[in-house]
């Protein structure tokens, strides 16, 4: 850390903006504080409470999957005309949530936003777990999930290949690439911190496990140099990747000719929606996290305020997307498009559309107020409302577009069954179970990156200050 960097961080303290790290933290104190959550601190009772609830919900999913494998997709509410129900709603919702993690870790790194440092680790973990939840749905939706590997092009005795002109196969590549690159990015970021845990762990098991995961990292100058290069390049690769993933997800809809799906606004509108919901989820997770583990020094009001501003900006893009959908329905003069919008707002599912506007368009407008951006409770509530609203958005897009298409004789309603709900609640359980395990066993904040923004003087260095003459 050069003195100039320290000054810039101190300047933040002086001005009205809250700092990205509380003043006075040293290399040693950030290391101790973050690694203590994993190594020395007693597991809070709240952790057990939360984990057990999440784990119980995850078991609901296990039961639901078992029953699905026995009975088939008939246990869901889907039928013709609504062939894509909760499974695809949940898939798009989860994969969208993942996008904020990549945005924080990759795009903000390239833009040299130092405030990302204390939230990127768990945002990346969130990405990984959200993609894991998302990945379950298309697989179980195939009807014969044990043959899901047919989606991949492998030489087979049938002599056929996937149909590469279909967005659904693009999705296979996009989501699996996204999962792989997110995992690599997350793991590479963890390596130096795993070495810290290896060196600081008091238990032999901890030393062995963290030691194996750290792969013998010793922080040599040459290693750091290659490491930084690889990390930066990964960030550069992940940035277009994250945009491509939700674009391809939107192609799943927009390449089809269903009114309500066949729109050119879909790719940017989906990407903005993904970032919007993802930041809402980061907020929902970080507010209790900093409270329970006392990480207010590292995840400061500055982080919450910045995330609130990004939510507001992406929320406005999403609102613009809704507006364009309404406009195009009128401007196109297409009677099916016009009917689709009328049915979406005034039809049997209209109440969900109004809830969606309430959650996604009206609620974030409160973020214009500085008082709301400064209120932890207010931000927490808004973030949860936005999460719910984004789920409604996917429901509206999928179900209201399908249930009344071109031919009135085929119109029908879609009603989710208890198994549909079990899968949704179950993946929430899976997500939070993984999140709780991650918080307990891995450093939730990137320790080595926090060292680069720690501004305090190291008291331990006093014993060598007599060397000042050498400088």
């Amino acid at each position, binding site marked *: 850390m050069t003195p100039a960097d320290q000054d810039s961080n101190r300047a933040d303290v002086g001005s009205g903006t809250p700092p990205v790290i509380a003043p006075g933290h040293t*290399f040693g104190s950030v290391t101790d504080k973050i690694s203590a959550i994993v190594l020395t601190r007693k597991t809070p009772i709240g952790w057990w409470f939360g984990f057990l609830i999440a784990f119980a919900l995850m078991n609901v999913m296990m039961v639901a999957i078992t029953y699905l494998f026995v009975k088939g997709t008939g246990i869901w509410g889907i039928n013709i005309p609504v062939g894509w129900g909760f499974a695809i709603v949940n898939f798009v919702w989860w994969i969208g949530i993942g996008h904020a993690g990549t945005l924080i870790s990759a795009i903000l790194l390239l833009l040299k936003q130092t405030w990302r440092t204390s939230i990127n680790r768990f945002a990346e973990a969130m990405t990984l777990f959200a993609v894991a939840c998302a990945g379950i749905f298309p697989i179980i939706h195939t009807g014969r999930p044990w043959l899901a590997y047919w989606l991949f092009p492998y030489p087979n005795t049938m002599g056929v*290949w996937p149909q590469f002109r279909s967005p659904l196969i693009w999705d296979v590549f996009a989501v699996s690439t996204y999962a792989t690159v997110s995992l690599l990015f997350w793991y590479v970021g963890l390596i130096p911190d795993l070495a810290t845990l290896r060196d600081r762990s008091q238990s032999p098991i901890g030393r062995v496990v963290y030691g194996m995961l750290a792969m013998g990292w010793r922080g040599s100058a040459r290693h750091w140099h290659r490491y930084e290069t690889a990390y930066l390049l990964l960030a550069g690769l992940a940035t277009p990747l994250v945009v491509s993933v939700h674009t391809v997800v939107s192609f799943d809809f927009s390449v089809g000719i269903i009114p309500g799906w066949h729109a050119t606004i879909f790719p940017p509108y989906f990407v903005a929606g993904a970032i919007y919901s993802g930041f809402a989820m980061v907020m929902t997770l970080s507010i209790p996290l900093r409270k329970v583990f006392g990480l207010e020094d590292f995840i400061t009001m500055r982080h919450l305020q910045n995330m609130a501003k990004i939510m507001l900006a992406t929320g406005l893009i999403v609102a613009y997307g809704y507006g364009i959908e309404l406009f195009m329905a009128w401007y196109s003069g297409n009677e099916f498009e016009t009917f689709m919008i009328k049915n979406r707002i005034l039809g049997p599912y209209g109440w969900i559309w109004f809830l969606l506007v309430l959650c996604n368009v009206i609620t974030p407008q409160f973020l214009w107020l500085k008082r709301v951006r400064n209120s932890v409770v207010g931000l927490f509530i808004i973030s949860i409302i936005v999460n719910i609203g984004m789920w409604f958005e996917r429901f509206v897009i999928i179900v209201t577009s399908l249930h009344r298409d071109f031919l009135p004789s085929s119109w029908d309603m879609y009603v989710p069954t208890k198994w549909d709900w079990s899968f949704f609640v179950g993946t929430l359980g899976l997500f939070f179970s993984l999140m709780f395990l991650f918080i307990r066993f891995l450093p939730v904040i990137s320790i080595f990156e926090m060292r680069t923004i720690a501004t305090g003087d190291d008291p331990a260095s006093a014993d060598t200050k007599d060397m000042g003459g050498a400088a």
Partner: protein
Amino acid sequence: MKSLLERFVSRGGKPEFGTPGPRVAGGELPARLFGVIAEFANAEDLLHAVPKARKEGYQVMEAYTPYPIEELNDAIGHGPSRVPVLVLLGGIVGALFGFGLQYWTSVIDYPLNIGGRPYNSWVSFIPITFECTILFAGLAAVLGMLVLNRLPMPYHPVFSVPRFQLASRDRFFLMILARDPHFRAGDTFRFMETLGASHVSDVED
């Protein structure tokens, strides 16, 4: 092929790895000495010590820090990293693989008429080509970094220094390797003590 691979991951000229080279010092070396390591309390002291050691004539050294310090790699005399080239190659291979896979399956191996579209529907092949480019480049970045760093490496002589644990917390280390032609066990040890280090110790191989 093998020689090319070997050259790419070759140990020649890489100070940090491999067995110590021929000892030029006469008799005074303790058996199996890997190097001498000095511990510094802050990055500035380390950054001051490196040019002094270079000026003294030492070439084969390595520094260890708890966080990346950009200028250290150059100061210590390591060249630029080869990771970017690997990533570029990975990306090119990925793009060729992605498009080649779709072209070969859709045009050559099993042409199917899908809604009257051309067999080579190259526009529809772009998303998968793009994803494969990113996937291969990303794998090349991570695997390239690990292979060039020769990780995983469960044991390294520096781990035998008890205080080296602090390299992953808040201490900065500089090691001069016994392979250095200028290395003399006692002299180097005494020289390291003049650099402002808080501790100096031998590193056994």
